[in-house]
């Protein structure tokens, strides 16, 4: 049926699908503004997973990070993430991170200087990268990786 669409309409459809592909992203900005996070900064920290709080509206990742100048001492970092729904679409599950896992987190730091922020990516020991959902990047109109892609509209047969 769609193959019979006029070429112009089809091209518009492809554009629309491309737009949709760019914009169909994870948990977006509907829950809160993310203004407490610094969108202009990205930080990276490595540590040991204390817990993945698998809950709505935002999952949280808790990470023990070794204090560089105090052997045996750890800081506890907190990272906000997207909703269970959005994260599931991005490949997360309740068991994606387990206590004791060593991971590296890229994040937007919280502006008030506390340890943590909004998770952008979590890199697992085997190199796999889990993308977070939501965050100030979304607020600023730049979409993170799409949660799923719209099927591509068929090309016109004309």
């Amino acid at each position, binding site marked *: 049926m*769609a193959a019979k669409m006029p070429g112009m309409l089809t091209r518009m459809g492809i554009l629309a*699908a491309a737009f949709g592909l760019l914009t169909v992203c994870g948990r977006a900005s509907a829950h809160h503004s993310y203004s407490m996070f610094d969108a202009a900064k990205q930080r990276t920290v490595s540590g040991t997973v204390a817990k993945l709080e698998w809950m*709505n*509206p935002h999952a949280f990742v808790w990470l*023990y990070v070794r204090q560089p100048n105090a*052997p045996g001492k750890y800081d506890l970092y907190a990272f906000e993430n997207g*909703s269970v729904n959005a994260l599931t679409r991005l490949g997360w599950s309740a068991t994606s991170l387990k206590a*004791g896992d060593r991971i590296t987190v890229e994040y937007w730091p919280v502006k008030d200087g506390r340890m*943590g922020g909004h998770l952008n990516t979590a890199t697992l020991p085997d190199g796999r990268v889990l993308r977070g959902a939501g965050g100030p990047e979304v607020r600023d*109109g730049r979409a993170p990786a799409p949660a799923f892609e719209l099927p591509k509209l068929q090309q016109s047969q004309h």
Partner: protein
Amino acid sequence: MTMNARRLAGVAACAALGFITIHGAWATDPVLPDWSGWWGQGDAPARSFITDPPPLRKEKQREAAQRQPGEIGRGLFCGPATFTGFNGSFVVNFEFLFTPGRVTITNEGGLIRRIYTDGRRLPLNAEPSSSGTSVGHWEGQTLVIETIGISPTAQLGRFGPIGKNARIVEHIRLKQKDILETVVETSAPDLFTATDRRTYLSGRVPGKQAPQEANFCSERDRSYDAKSGKERFDTTPPADLPPPPAQ
């Protein structure tokens, strides 16, 4: 006629009446398209408002400008799922359920819309509700839905409450096998100066069988303080955290 015969005749009459009722309801529906499965729109509708701003009233423009995208107005947190033109709200997946004379649309955020396609008309005065009051009809393979009676406090993104006497008309059709096109026309006199018309696409989510509940109203929302109405970043550690790694 004996008692048993009268009973038998009564049962037969009831069965015939039921058949006519059911058949009558189906009769108003055409051969229905395959809209099975779950549909995702992501935040495409929300972004369409960025690229194509709606005809907001001036005072609403000022109010919207003062809000951050995604900001929740005080008192709206933990409210019920509402319909303001987008079946997936702004982020969740949705599904269609076809029954005789009715289409039901649900989404993962808890929205339930009952759209009667049995020929009935909209009431003159619909009681305000979260999903509104809807009737629909089929124009070929396009489902046309008209909705009124939407709760005036239902939030249309960061533009604020949709206001009184909102009326939404949707034209939904399969653009291709796994792509659904929705044209939504929103008349909301308290919010817009003219009817807002936009088109968005949804994709069938491959392999998805069950909803992923997206109840944003958790008892422990670390990002929002329902009492103060303010955003927060709550770093109170969970009570069951394991101890730090041993040396």
